[in-house]
């Protein structure tokens, strides 16, 4: 069969689909990935064929824009100013002309969205896929499938589903331009999605409507090799991994690595610290027992680690679930907060709001992960549940039953 995948403008949104893409190709099916030009390199270096025709909606821009509305509503929780969507400079919400800015921003968003919708519909008409896979925020795939009358399958990237109660989680894009009704495709809501690939083990089950297709999460965190590391010694090894987009979205105060490193220096642990070259300078002098590494795919770092500290991103969380590593999430965004809370509810981790987490709290939380058997047992249980789910190779057969193609 021929499968078209459509993806939104953020690698972490579609990296969890990559193993299903490999599975499709390895079973002899055709796969193309429609994406924004800015995502083409990341799609290609996952081994998949990119079709860079979608509009460009930068997720950092979108997050900053949403933050300005939060600030206006008095719901911006941080003791520092939100950032300007384009310049990234701090903005004083009391003087910033948000309504004026929103005029331009909404035009930009509408234009890029229209480009995506038109391109997805047009490419679907020309290439004639049998089924469309799309990530949760890539509504163009859903629309193109409805217009073409073929099945669409949404693919989640973690524990946040399509049918969330909290609006701040943005479970689905908002159809500002009313493209769905204009194309006779109904409304863009949770009921519009009939099939959802769910990579989460029970315990983290995301709320969805429609038919759930269970799949095992297989970590793909971008290209790269494992660093050469000596085997873990007497001290427990703790990995600290931090997305540098946190400070780009939420401000410099959202770069917590120095505080985490200082907290861990008070414990008898070895720290693995992969860092982006841009972040090295901000780290200053590091305490002993911190092993600075070049960035590497997280799943290649976690074996041998007794705990991991991260920003609550779905990729980190799910990779740690797969590895059975207890985790501490220090989130900033609403989705990361939800992920941290759901991990904590499953017992496999702990979550503390990033801006409130003190050095002592971080230290004590990691100490708790290391010394309370409840956490490692829950993490092991979650990993076992995750690994017993159908593999992407199995899911290919499920997708095949949804189409009439061979």
């Amino acid at each position, binding site marked *: 069969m021929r499968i078209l995948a459509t993806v939104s403008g953020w690698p972490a949104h579609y990296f969890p689909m990559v*193993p299903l893409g490999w*599975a499709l*190709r*390895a*079973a002899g099916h055709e796969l193309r990935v429609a994406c924004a030009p800015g995502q083409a390199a990341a799609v290609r270096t996952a*081994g998949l064929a990119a*079709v860079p025709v979608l509009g460009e909606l930068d997720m950092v821009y979108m997050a900053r824009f949403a933050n300005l509305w939060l600030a206006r509503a008095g719901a911006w929780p941080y003791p520092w100013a939100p950032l300007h969507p384009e310049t990234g400079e701090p903005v004083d919400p009391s003087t910033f002309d948000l309504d004026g800015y929103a005029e331009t921003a909404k035009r930009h968003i509408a234009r890029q969205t229209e480009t995506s919708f038109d391109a997805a519909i047009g490419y679907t008409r020309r290439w004639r896929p049998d089924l469309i896979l799309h990530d949760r925020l890539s509504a163009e795939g859903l629309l193109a499938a409805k217009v073409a009358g073929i099945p669409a399958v949404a693919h989640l990237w973690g524990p946040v589903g399509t049918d969330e109660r909290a609006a701040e989680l943005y479970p689905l894009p908002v159809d500002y331009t009313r493209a769905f009704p204009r194309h006779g495709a109904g409304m863009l809501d949770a009921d519009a999605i009939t099939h959802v690939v769910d990579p989460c083990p029970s315990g983290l089950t995301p709320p969805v409507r429609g038919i759930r297709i269970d799949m095992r999460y297989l970590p793909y965190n971008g290209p790269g090799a494992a660093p050469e590391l000596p085997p873990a010694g007497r001290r427990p090894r703790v990995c600290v991994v931090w997305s540098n987009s946190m400070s780009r979205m939420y401000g410099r105060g959202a770069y917590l690595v120095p505080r985490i490193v200082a907290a861990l220096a008070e414990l008898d642990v070895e720290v693995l610290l992969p860092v982006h070259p841009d972040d090295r300078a901000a780290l200053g002098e590091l305490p002993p027992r911190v092993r600075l590494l070049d960035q590497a795919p997280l799943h290649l770092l976690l074996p041998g680690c007794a705990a991991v500290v991260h920003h609550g991103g779905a990729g980190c969380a799910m990779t740690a679930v797969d590895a059975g590593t207890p985790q501490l999430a220090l989130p900033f965004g609403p989705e990361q907060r939800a992920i941290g809370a759901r991990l904590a509810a499953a017992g496999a981790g702990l979550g503390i709001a990033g801006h409130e987490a003190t050095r002592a709290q971080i230290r004590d939380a990691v100490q708790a992960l290391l010394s309370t058997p409840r956490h490692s047992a829950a993490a092991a249980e979650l990993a076992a549940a995750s690994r017993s789910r159908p593999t*992407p*190779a199995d899911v290919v057969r499920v997708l095949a039953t949804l189409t009439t193609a061979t």
Partner: protein
Amino acid sequence: MRVLFAVSSWPGHYYPMVPLGWALQAAGHDVRVACTPGQHAAVSAAGLTPVPVLDGMDMVFLTRLRYLWDAQAGHWPYPWQPLHPVTGQEVAGLRDFDFDSYVAAHTATTFGAMIRSFDAAVRLARDWRPDLVVHDPLAVEGALAAAAVKVPAVTHLWGPVGTHEPAATGLQIVPEYPAGTFARWKVGSLGPDAVTHVVDVCPPALAPPTTATRLPVRFVPYNGPGAGPPGDDRPAGRPRVCVVWGTSTTAMSGPRSFALPDIVTALAGLDVEVVVTATAEDLDRLGPLPRGVRGVERCPLRLVLPGCSAVVHHGGAGCTMTAVDAGVPQLGVSFAIEQALNAERVAAAGAGAHLPGHLAGVDTVRAAVTDLLDKPAYAAAARALREDARARPTPADLVSTLAGLAGRP
């Protein structure tokens, strides 16, 4: 299970293994790819995890050396001389390069690198403890690593050329090493006869000669990263002919092997639309293109072929098999024995034609492509070959066979 891939320093040698790597990963198995540092980027960009610890001789040097040896053994059909392995210039006489004296002068660099590579492969296998090793025919490191940790090794072929070609062809793709080479790792001789299993990507009509047990698989094309050609997928009116040129044909076979200009001139004289995909360098050397000819830089062939009525290439296994999978009649213009064999076998199956490089001029190429386009038997045979190719077990299907072989069903 854990599966170690070991690959030689040439993407074309291991790209055919990539879909099997995907299949294993997508079924939840762990795959690592032992490679040289030079292949790190190409392996990662295929979605696999490189372990860049291997070493060894440069592939251009090795290939030129092989061609020279072929010529010294009388297996060189071309009216010019092969290249000097080091300088890349045509040798004046076949004895101008003496391998033994070269080795004597460069023992540390040639054998040193080889021993380092062997050591690294064995160390990796002992540390990572794979259940199975899959390697391309030239990556003896894979066979060695498997033997050292006593797990099965599988040689993944790249096309119609096998481990045991008839002596008359003079071609042996699995290298043989002097007795005792692997003694320090307590491993006996490795070579064609030590190969117990091959992954065979060819439909029966192209079956590569081998004495090993065949593990049949469907060739799923992966030709490296890249997007499809810009523009509409479907040709308008006139038939479309694709020309794809090897990324290294000139470096390995010399400037006389740059047949692209003649091929383009030949096709420009036909009532067809032509798409040429090649390296930026080769497109530059081609200069301004005639009307009706479009040049695109390094487009994965599998994305160009749908909609094409014929393809002209240099006979490389990757091009040959991608065209087989697409069901497109092909003309191979060859500059080395292996490429000639690929093209001969496709021609014998009726799905294409072969022109040895020195016979490929404007007229002969034009006549050959005209045949491919005009005689329906070629298209019919190409379609039949594609049917047979696609009826084979997919890489996804091969996973359980490999698990059985590794004793991890």
